[in-house]
Protein backbone atom coordinates (compact mmCIF):
# COMPACT_ATOMS: atom_id res chain seq x y z
CA UNK A 1 0.00 0.00 0.00
CA UNK A 2 1.31 3.43 -0.89
CA UNK A 3 1.59 5.98 1.89
CA UNK A 4 0.69 9.63 1.33
CA UNK A 5 3.67 11.90 1.95
CA UNK A 6 4.98 15.32 1.11
CA UNK A 7 8.56 16.34 0.41
CA UNK A 8 11.06 19.17 0.53
CA UNK A 9 13.17 20.37 -2.40
CA UNK A 10 16.43 18.94 -1.00
CA UNK A 11 15.07 15.39 -0.88
CA UNK A 12 13.59 15.57 -4.39
CA UNK A 13 16.91 16.75 -5.83
CA UNK A 14 18.76 13.83 -4.23
CA UNK A 15 16.20 11.24 -5.28
CA UNK A 16 16.28 12.44 -8.89
CA UNK A 17 20.09 12.59 -8.82
CA UNK A 18 20.25 8.97 -7.63
CA UNK A 19 17.57 7.94 -10.13
CA UNK A 20 15.37 6.46 -7.39
CA UNK A 21 12.15 8.27 -8.31
CA UNK A 22 10.39 5.12 -9.50
CA UNK A 23 11.09 3.32 -6.25
CA UNK A 24 9.88 6.31 -4.25
CA UNK A 25 6.68 6.50 -6.29
CA UNK A 26 6.09 2.79 -5.72
CA UNK A 27 6.13 3.42 -1.96
CA UNK A 28 4.64 6.88 -1.61
CA UNK A 29 1.69 8.78 -2.96
CA UNK A 30 3.50 12.11 -3.17
CA UNK A 31 1.99 15.53 -2.63
CA UNK A 32 4.06 18.52 -3.66
CA UNK A 33 3.52 22.04 -2.36
CA UNK A 34 3.56 24.84 -4.89
CA UNK A 35 6.39 26.54 -2.98
CA UNK A 36 8.61 23.46 -3.34
CA UNK A 37 7.76 23.30 -7.03
CA UNK A 38 8.73 26.98 -7.38
CA UNK A 39 11.99 26.47 -5.50
CA UNK A 40 13.04 23.82 -8.00
CA UNK A 41 13.12 26.46 -10.72
CA UNK A 42 12.20 25.74 -14.31
CA UNK A 43 15.21 24.71 -16.30
CA UNK A 44 16.92 21.73 -14.72
CA UNK A 45 16.43 17.92 -14.73
CA UNK A 46 14.87 17.85 -11.25
CA UNK A 47 12.19 20.40 -12.09
CA UNK A 48 11.49 18.78 -15.48
CA UNK A 49 10.96 15.45 -13.77
CA UNK A 50 8.61 16.95 -11.22
CA UNK A 51 6.64 18.92 -13.79
CA UNK A 52 6.12 15.81 -15.94
CA UNK A 53 4.85 13.85 -12.93
CA UNK A 54 2.59 16.70 -11.83
CA UNK A 55 1.14 17.01 -15.34
CA UNK A 56 0.55 13.26 -15.52
CA UNK A 57 -1.20 13.41 -12.14
CA UNK A 58 1.28 10.94 -10.61
CA UNK A 59 2.20 13.57 -8.03
CA UNK A 60 -0.51 15.80 -6.59
CA UNK A 61 -0.11 19.51 -5.93
CA UNK A 62 -1.29 21.22 -2.72
CA UNK A 63 -0.95 24.35 -0.62
CA UNK A 64 -1.20 24.40 3.19
CA UNK A 65 -4.01 26.57 4.54
CA UNK A 66 -2.52 27.39 7.91
CA UNK A 67 1.01 28.52 8.73
CA UNK A 68 1.84 26.75 12.00
CA UNK A 69 5.57 26.92 11.37
CA UNK A 70 7.15 30.19 10.27
CA UNK A 71 10.60 29.42 8.90
CA UNK A 72 12.31 31.76 6.50
CA UNK A 73 12.53 29.47 3.48
CA UNK A 74 9.29 29.25 1.52
CA UNK A 75 9.61 25.63 0.35
CA UNK A 76 10.57 24.15 3.70
CA UNK A 77 7.87 26.19 5.45
CA UNK A 78 5.15 25.02 3.06
CA UNK A 79 6.25 21.37 3.17
CA UNK A 80 6.35 21.31 7.00
CA UNK A 81 3.01 23.10 7.29
CA UNK A 82 1.34 20.72 4.84
CA UNK A 83 2.76 17.74 6.73
CA UNK A 84 1.39 19.14 10.00
CA UNK A 85 -1.98 20.05 8.52
CA UNK A 86 -2.60 16.68 6.89
CA UNK A 87 -0.58 14.53 9.29
CA UNK A 88 1.71 13.40 6.47
CA UNK A 89 5.23 12.07 6.71
CA UNK A 90 7.75 14.54 5.32
CA UNK A 91 10.69 13.54 3.13
CA UNK A 92 13.39 16.10 3.80
CA UNK A 93 17.21 16.11 3.55
CA UNK A 94 18.20 19.58 4.68
CA UNK A 95 19.10 19.09 8.35
CA UNK A 96 18.03 22.47 9.73
CA UNK A 97 14.41 22.33 8.57
CA UNK A 98 14.50 18.55 9.21
CA UNK A 99 15.15 19.28 12.88
CA UNK A 100 12.56 22.07 12.93
CA UNK A 101 9.97 19.68 11.47
CA UNK A 102 10.86 16.93 13.91
CA UNK A 103 10.56 19.29 16.88
CA UNK A 104 7.18 20.48 15.54
CA UNK A 105 5.97 16.89 15.64
CA UNK A 106 6.23 15.90 11.97
CA UNK A 107 7.16 12.31 11.07
CA UNK A 108 10.34 12.93 9.08
CA UNK A 109 12.18 10.67 6.63
CA UNK A 110 15.35 11.45 4.69
CA UNK A 111 16.89 9.96 1.55
CA UNK A 112 19.48 8.07 3.60
CA UNK A 113 16.88 6.37 5.81
CA UNK A 114 14.91 5.52 2.69
CA UNK A 115 17.98 3.94 1.06
CA UNK A 116 18.56 1.84 4.19
CA UNK A 117 14.95 0.70 4.03
CA UNK A 118 15.30 -0.26 0.36
CA UNK A 119 18.45 -2.19 1.17
CA UNK A 120 16.91 -3.97 4.16
CA UNK A 121 13.95 -4.94 1.97
CA UNK A 122 16.29 -6.39 -0.62
CA UNK A 123 15.21 -3.88 -3.25
CA UNK A 124 18.73 -2.44 -3.46
CA UNK A 125 21.89 -4.51 -3.35
CA UNK A 126 24.77 -3.60 -1.06
CA UNK A 127 26.66 -2.42 -4.14
CA UNK A 128 23.81 -0.13 -5.14
CA UNK A 129 23.36 1.34 -1.68
CA UNK A 130 27.11 1.94 -1.28
CA UNK A 131 27.26 3.54 -4.69
CA UNK A 132 24.36 5.85 -3.79
CA UNK A 133 25.96 6.77 -0.47
CA UNK A 134 29.29 7.41 -2.16
CA UNK A 135 27.66 9.67 -4.73
CA UNK A 136 25.92 11.60 -1.99
CA UNK A 137 29.16 11.90 -0.01
CA UNK A 138 30.87 13.29 -3.10
CA UNK A 139 28.16 15.93 -3.53
CA UNK A 140 28.55 17.20 0.02
CA UNK A 141 24.92 18.29 0.26
CA UNK A 142 24.11 16.00 3.19
CA UNK A 143 25.18 16.17 6.79
CA UNK A 144 28.34 13.99 7.14
CA UNK A 145 27.11 12.62 10.50
CA UNK A 146 24.01 11.29 8.76
CA UNK A 147 26.11 9.54 6.14
CA UNK A 148 28.28 8.02 8.85
CA UNK A 149 25.24 6.65 10.71
CA UNK A 150 23.77 5.29 7.49
CA UNK A 151 26.97 3.43 6.70
CA UNK A 152 26.97 1.94 10.19
CA UNK A 153 23.39 0.71 9.74
CA UNK A 154 24.15 -0.77 6.32
CA UNK A 155 27.17 -2.57 7.77
CA UNK A 156 25.05 -3.88 10.67
CA UNK A 157 22.36 -5.20 8.32
CA UNK A 158 24.98 -6.84 6.15
CA UNK A 159 26.59 -8.42 9.22
CA UNK A 160 23.25 -9.72 10.47
CA UNK A 161 22.42 -11.15 7.06
CA UNK A 162 25.76 -12.96 6.79
CA UNK A 163 25.33 -14.56 10.25
CA UNK A 164 21.84 -15.74 9.24
CA UNK A 165 23.12 -17.41 6.09
Amino acid at each position, binding site marked *: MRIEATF*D*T*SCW*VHIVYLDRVDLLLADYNLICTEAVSR*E*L*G*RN*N*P*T*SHRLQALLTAGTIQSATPHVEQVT*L*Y*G*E*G*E*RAAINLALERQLPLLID*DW*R*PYEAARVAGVAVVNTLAYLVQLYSQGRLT*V*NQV*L*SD*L*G*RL*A*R*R*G*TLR*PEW*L*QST*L*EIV*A*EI*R*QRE*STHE
Partner: protein
Amino acid sequence: MSKEKRHRTTVTVRLTDEEYDVLTRLCDLQKTTRTAYLARVATRHAKQELLRYAADEYLAGRASLSELATRTGLDVPTIMEEVAQITGEDTQAVESFLSAVETLSQLHNDPEFYAMAKKAIE
Protein backbone atom coordinates in the same frame (compact mmCIF):
# COMPACT_ATOMS: atom_id res chain seq x y z
CA MET B 1 5.10 38.86 -33.64
CA SER B 2 5.87 41.83 -31.45
CA LYS B 3 8.72 41.58 -28.96
CA GLU B 4 7.67 41.54 -25.32
CA LYS B 5 8.70 44.83 -23.70
CA ARG B 6 10.59 44.34 -20.46
CA HIS B 7 10.50 46.93 -17.74
CA ARG B 8 13.84 48.59 -17.18
CA THR B 9 15.14 50.51 -14.18
CA THR B 10 17.73 53.24 -14.47
CA VAL B 11 20.82 53.00 -12.24
CA THR B 12 23.33 55.84 -12.29
CA VAL B 13 27.00 54.92 -12.07
CA ARG B 14 29.59 57.58 -11.28
CA LEU B 15 33.04 56.92 -12.69
CA THR B 16 36.40 58.64 -12.43
CA ASP B 17 37.92 59.92 -15.71
CA GLU B 18 40.28 56.97 -15.74
CA GLU B 19 37.50 54.41 -15.19
CA TYR B 20 35.38 56.09 -17.84
CA ASP B 21 38.25 56.00 -20.31
CA VAL B 22 38.90 52.28 -19.77
CA LEU B 23 35.22 51.49 -20.14
CA THR B 24 34.81 53.58 -23.27
CA ARG B 25 37.85 52.04 -24.99
CA LEU B 26 36.61 48.51 -24.34
CA CYS B 27 33.06 49.29 -25.43
CA ASP B 28 34.34 50.89 -28.65
CA LEU B 29 36.44 47.82 -29.38
CA GLN B 30 33.58 45.46 -28.62
CA LYS B 31 31.12 47.67 -30.50
CA THR B 32 28.73 47.82 -27.59
CA THR B 33 27.25 50.60 -25.53
CA ARG B 34 28.52 51.35 -22.04
CA THR B 35 25.05 50.71 -20.65
CA ALA B 36 24.75 47.30 -22.30
CA TYR B 37 28.24 46.32 -21.22
CA LEU B 38 27.80 47.38 -17.59
CA ALA B 39 24.39 45.74 -17.37
CA ARG B 40 25.71 42.45 -18.75
CA VAL B 41 28.87 42.32 -16.66
CA ALA B 42 27.25 43.47 -13.44
CA THR B 43 24.37 41.00 -13.75
CA ARG B 44 26.64 38.08 -14.54
CA HIS B 45 28.97 38.95 -11.69
CA ALA B 46 26.12 39.47 -9.24
CA LYS B 47 24.64 36.08 -10.10
CA GLN B 48 27.98 34.38 -9.50
CA GLU B 49 28.40 36.20 -6.20
CA LEU B 50 24.89 35.23 -5.10
CA LEU B 51 25.59 31.60 -5.95
CA ARG B 52 28.88 31.56 -4.10
CA TYR B 53 27.31 33.29 -1.10
CA ALA B 54 24.51 30.69 -0.99
CA ALA B 55 26.92 27.75 -1.23
CA ASP B 56 29.23 29.19 1.44
CA GLU B 57 26.35 29.88 3.82
CA TYR B 58 25.00 26.38 3.33
CA LEU B 59 28.37 24.69 3.78
CA ALA B 60 29.02 26.71 6.93
CA GLY B 61 25.67 25.48 8.29
CA ARG B 62 24.35 29.00 8.67
CA ALA B 63 21.21 28.65 6.54
CA SER B 64 19.03 26.04 4.90
CA LEU B 65 18.74 25.60 1.14
CA SER B 66 15.18 26.84 1.17
CA GLU B 67 16.15 29.95 3.13
CA LEU B 68 18.97 30.64 0.70
CA ALA B 69 16.70 30.21 -2.29
CA THR B 70 14.31 32.75 -0.77
CA ARG B 71 17.16 35.15 0.05
CA THR B 72 19.01 34.97 -3.25
CA GLY B 73 16.19 34.27 -5.71
CA LEU B 74 18.16 31.29 -7.05
CA ASP B 75 16.57 27.88 -7.37
CA VAL B 76 17.57 25.12 -4.97
CA PRO B 77 19.05 22.71 -7.57
CA THR B 78 21.40 25.47 -8.76
CA ILE B 79 22.59 26.10 -5.19
CA MET B 80 23.03 22.35 -4.58
CA GLU B 81 25.01 22.04 -7.81
CA GLU B 82 27.35 24.81 -6.67
CA VAL B 83 27.77 23.11 -3.27
CA ALA B 84 28.53 19.84 -5.07
CA GLN B 85 31.12 21.56 -7.26
CA ILE B 86 32.86 23.16 -4.29
CA THR B 87 32.83 19.88 -2.36
CA GLY B 88 33.93 17.94 -5.41
CA GLU B 89 36.96 20.17 -5.73
CA ASP B 90 38.37 18.79 -2.50
CA THR B 91 38.52 15.05 -2.06
CA GLN B 92 38.02 15.20 1.69
CA ALA B 93 34.36 14.17 1.57
CA VAL B 94 35.10 10.99 -0.36
CA GLU B 95 38.16 10.19 1.74
CA SER B 96 36.18 10.62 4.92
CA PHE B 97 33.40 8.41 3.52
CA LEU B 98 35.87 5.67 2.60
CA SER B 99 37.66 5.90 5.90
CA ALA B 100 34.32 5.36 7.68
CA VAL B 101 33.69 2.32 5.49
CA GLU B 102 37.17 1.01 6.23
CA THR B 103 36.63 1.30 9.99
CA LEU B 104 33.30 -0.52 9.76
CA SER B 105 34.83 -3.10 7.50
CA GLN B 106 37.49 -3.85 10.13
CA LEU B 107 35.03 -3.78 13.03
CA HIS B 108 32.77 -6.30 11.32
CA ASN B 109 35.64 -8.31 9.88
CA ASP B 110 34.16 -7.75 6.45
CA PRO B 111 36.90 -6.72 4.00
CA GLU B 112 34.52 -7.15 1.07
CA PHE B 113 32.41 -4.26 2.40
CA TYR B 114 35.33 -1.86 1.98
CA ALA B 115 36.28 -3.30 -1.40
CA MET B 116 32.72 -2.85 -2.65
CA ALA B 117 32.48 0.72 -1.38
CA LYS B 118 35.79 1.62 -2.97
CA LYS B 119 34.68 0.14 -6.25
CA ALA B 120 31.29 1.81 -6.03
CA ILE B 121 32.78 5.25 -5.50
CA GLU B 122 35.32 5.04 -8.34
